[in-house]
């Protein structure tokens, strides 16, 4: 992929990721945030956190399935945008929803499983954002860095659980998100299995475990 195409792709991702926020700001400016603005803003930011996080988790499967390398160049950008949105999501909960009512928030984190897993998802994204720079990759070494960044899967699972557990009867989008995550993880597992089988075949002559 040419340098120019890559640049265009990055600009498109920036635009796509900032779009939802711009829309929220526009709706806020025009007084169009529904009768319960804080709840609406919290939910919208949460929705986009999960969508962008799933998009970042989709990059490796895209490479596996289509054999192209360019999705990997977008992974960090998408991951950082997911972190940006979860930060806003959390800030709205902290400031606008509960206005620093630490006691109530602490009780919710401990007692409400959906908030517990949401908080864990947020925490698991912090080291990823902190080690997202090229310099940090070098400092940690590729192996450690890769291992650390497997936390992204945990964040995806926790994020989907957060949505599944908070959604009320009759809603459906929580299932679509969980299904997308299952699909993305499924591609990776399948690819791991294929690679494992190939390796075993290459060892070839070595007697397999008694079948």
């Amino acid at each position: 992929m040419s340098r120019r195409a890559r640049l265009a792709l990055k600009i498109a991702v920036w635009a796509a990721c900032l779009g939802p926020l711009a829309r929220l700001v526009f709706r806020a400016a025009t007084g169009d945030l529904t009768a319960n603005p804080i709840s609406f803003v919290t939910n919208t930011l949460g929705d986009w956190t999960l969508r962008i996080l799933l998009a970042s988790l989709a990059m490796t499967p895209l490479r596996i399935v289509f054999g192209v390398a360019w999705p990997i160049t977008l992974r960090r950008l998408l991951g950082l945008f997911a972190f940006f949105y979860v930060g806003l999501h959390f800030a709205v909960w902290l400031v606008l929803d509960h206005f620093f009512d630490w006691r109530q928030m602490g009780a919710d984190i401990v007692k409400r499983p959906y908030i517990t897993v949401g908080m864990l998802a947020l925490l698991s994204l912090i080291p990823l954002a902190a080690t997202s720079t090229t310099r940090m990759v070098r400092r940690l070494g590729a192996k450690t860095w890769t291992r650390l960044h497997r936390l992204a899967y945990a964040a995806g699972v926790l994020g989907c659980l957060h949505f599944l557990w908070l959604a009320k009867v009759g809603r459906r989008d929580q299932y679509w998100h969980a299904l997308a995550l299952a699909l993305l993880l499924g591609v990776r597992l399948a690819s791991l299995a294929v690679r494992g089988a190939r390796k075993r075949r290459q060892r070839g002559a070595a007697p397999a475990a008694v079948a």
Partner: protein
Amino acid sequence: MLIRRAPRFTSNDITDRTVYLNRREWMAGAAALVLMPGESAASAPQGQALKATRNEAQSLQETPTKFEAATTYNNFYEFGVNKEDPARLAGTLKPRPWAVQVDGLVHKPKTYDIDELLRLAPLEERVYSLRCVEGWSMVLPWIGSPLAALLRRVEPTGKARYVEFTTLLDASQFPAQRPSFFGFSLEWPYVEGLRLDEALHPLTLLTVGMYGQVLPNQNGAPVRIVVPWKYGFKSAKSVVRIRLVADQPKTSWNRSAPQEYGFYSNVNPAVSHPRWSQATERRIGEFRRRPTLPFNGYGDQVASLYAGMDLGKSY
């Protein structure tokens, strides 16, 4: 002699009805006026003014929620699960003609036409707080008459201990009642219920209007129940049947998730919903959360109904 007083909210608080009525409803209403000039005034399309006398003793001294918020932020699953669905889709509901069958363990079962219900007892305006189980609340100027007035007319037998309310079942009017092959929702029709003494309590309102007019479709037209000391879902909307029974009715949310929604569902800050605290609420239109009051602030009037009961268990 009751003196009619001006409502506490100013006309600025009220959105003009042409703004909130969607185009289709508005045109249907206009067409109805043109095509059916002979109908009684009471059969006019929704948005029609409804005269009522303010019951000051039973009204909160608080500014009502903005009309626009009260009619665009609704839980009415028959139209869809999103808050904006009812306002967007409620044009399919036909609130007239309408009849309510009142039967079961009564001496005088009867099917009431909506116009009869409007004349059953003097209409009162009562400003009640409505607390949703999801943690938000509104202040709503309802119009109606005590449910007790209707129940006394049909003369419950000695065996009647509960009252069951059933919402209309008609997928052509309630789009979300159509069967869907993915995801699950409530079982239709929507059923709610009260103990007979709760239903006879003077606060329990057979409601036909709000904000000085007939009930908008998305708020449960043409007739609904309002039980202000319970979470909002206990107040059945668009009711077609009121049945007096001996056993506790199998109510919709209770059937769907018994650990989350008890039969009583009295507003209670001390009893959390399993997934969230009920200690505080956001009054629509306000920024800060406010503490939730036991029985939604109506404890003085209703706590005695539950004397000796463990409200942590009978939630």
